[in-house]
């Protein structure tokens, strides 16, 4: 449904390489995630795929159409929700929705079934101007407007940035239901925990794709073992491990410190870590193997 081949995009006369030889493909009906921090190149990729930006080199197709030659067909067959709120602040909820339906030569009624789940949540405020809506409501309206012409592919650029964990969970529930209706979805997020909700993900940093796999596949591909460490005085435990020679790859992870088992020599890492922490005078020490998350994998890619 989407295929990207060796796309490169630079800004400032080549000084900034925003997208660096990126290739990936998304199957029909797939929920595909671009996972990476701000500045990784996610938005540039979205803008190229929605024909709003020309790549320097490389080719890409969306729904069978070429992003350069067939931009008209692409524009009428994809839905796009940009990272920045881009609806008309002076139009009300229902006016915005009707406007977008009309622009795409359709009506709200015709495709209402696609947005019904989401629209009912904001319908009580349908006379309110879009500019006066709260963040979560704006986000729901933007999703409705991106869906109202029944796109074959939906591009969502960081739809959950700055959104609290409960609302984020709800948003992903909505995406799951859209996927069940057969819509192909490409979504980007800086939240690693959301990556697990995609069928496949591409981890991206500095314009390059670091890895493409299913979330389970990414976790399974974690090289070596990972350990979780806890002690009564966590800041001190963290300092002790960071200062250790030979160096140990350790970092805070919620209520634990995660320690990368690779490069810790022949000794049993659990024994070794217990020894280091006990010797430093720490108490209530816990050390155990844990299953890596996507965030662990990302950290590993960035630090080694």
């Amino acid at each position, binding site marked *: 449904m989407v295929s990207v081949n060796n796309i490169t995009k630079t800004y400032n006369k080549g000084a900034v390489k925003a997208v660096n030889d990126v290739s990936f493909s998304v199957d029909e009906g797939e929920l595909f995630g671009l996972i*990476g*921090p*701000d*500045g*990784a190149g996610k938005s540039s990729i979205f803008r190229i795929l929605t024909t709003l930006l020309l790549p320097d080199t490389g080719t890409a197709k969306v729904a069978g159409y070429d992003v350069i030659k067939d931009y008209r067909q692409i524009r009428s067959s994809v839905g796009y929700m940009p990272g920045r709120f881009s609806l008309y602040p002076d139009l009300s909820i229902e006016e915005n929705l009707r406007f977008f339906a009309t622009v795409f030569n359709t009506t709200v009624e015709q495709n209402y079934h696609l947005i019904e789940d989401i629209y009912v949540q904001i319908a009580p405020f349908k006379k309110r101007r879009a500019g006066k*809506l*709260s*963040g*979560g*409501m704006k986000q729901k309206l933007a999703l409705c407007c991106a869906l109202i012409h029944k796109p074959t592919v939906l591009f969502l650029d*960081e739809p959950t*940035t*700055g*959104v*609290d*964990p*409960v*609302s*984020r*969970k709800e948003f992903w529930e909505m995406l799951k239901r859209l996927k069940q209706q057969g819509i192909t979805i490409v979504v980007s997020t*800086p*939240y*690693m925990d959301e990556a697990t909700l995609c069928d496949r993900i591409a981890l991206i*940093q500095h314009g390059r794709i670091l890895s493409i796999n299913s979330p389970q596949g990414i976790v399974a591909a974690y090289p070596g073992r990972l350990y979780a460490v806890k002690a009564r005085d966590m*800041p001190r435990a963290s300092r002790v491990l960071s200062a250790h020679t030979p160096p140990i790859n350790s*970092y*805070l*992870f*919620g*209520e634990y410190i995660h320690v990368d088992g690779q490069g810790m020599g022949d000794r049993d890492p659990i024994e070794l870590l217990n020894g280091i922490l006990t010797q430093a005078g720490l108490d209530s020490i816990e050390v155990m193997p844990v299953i890596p998350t996507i*965030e662990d994998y*990302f*950290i590993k890619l*960035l*630090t080694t």
Partner: protein
Amino acid sequence: MNANQPVIKAENLTKRFGDFIATNAISFEVYKGEIFGFLGANGAGKTTAMRMLCGLSVPSSGTAHIAGFDVYRQTEKIKRNIGYMSQKFSLYEDLTVLENIRFFGGIYGLSDQELRLKSDALIEQLGLQSEAKKLVGELPLGWKQKLAFSVSILHEPTVVFLDEPTGGVDPVTRRQFWALIYEAAGNGITVFVTTHYMDEAEYCHRISIMVDGRIAALGTPKELKAQLNESSMDGVFYQLARGAKNTD
């Protein structure tokens, strides 16, 4: 100010907008050098509360003191004694690293000599020597945020308010940012921080969770997990925020 006195003390702090009560009689205390996580869903009233604590919005009722100063009568003194940064407002993109440091330091009343010493030390601490004369707009977001935080505490405020400082930052830089927070707290600066990353809630000494304008829970991460019988802060947050009416 007495060392044992709370640095932030709010009692029944309330803000109404017409019929709507954005912040509803919240009370809490934060102490010197403490990292206090101020959590809540979008629309729960965090920003309104934070604006009152910074002296930017007059409360409808209740009291609050920041560094001993009253939020009704001494807002100018409050502003001199706090630092502030957020994901949205940080530094001037079209000024260089050095110019930003001098500009904000100057606004906070540092002398030329202090500024020279401090800007050199800061640039070295952050390893930005080769970037000092670059425009801030050219720096990666993570660096910008670390720089913005360091600038916000350049004048050694009593409290620093951080509004979602790590939003969108990569996981490694996010942790480096928290190392800076720990260092600041270790130097006696009180840190008041909001975040949507639940793992970061674990890095705070104590946290409060706001739901519909009220503080629904307050304690150490360990206490809250025990109270609500949850194994993670994620679980605690869901349990409390799920029933919220003012979510957006």
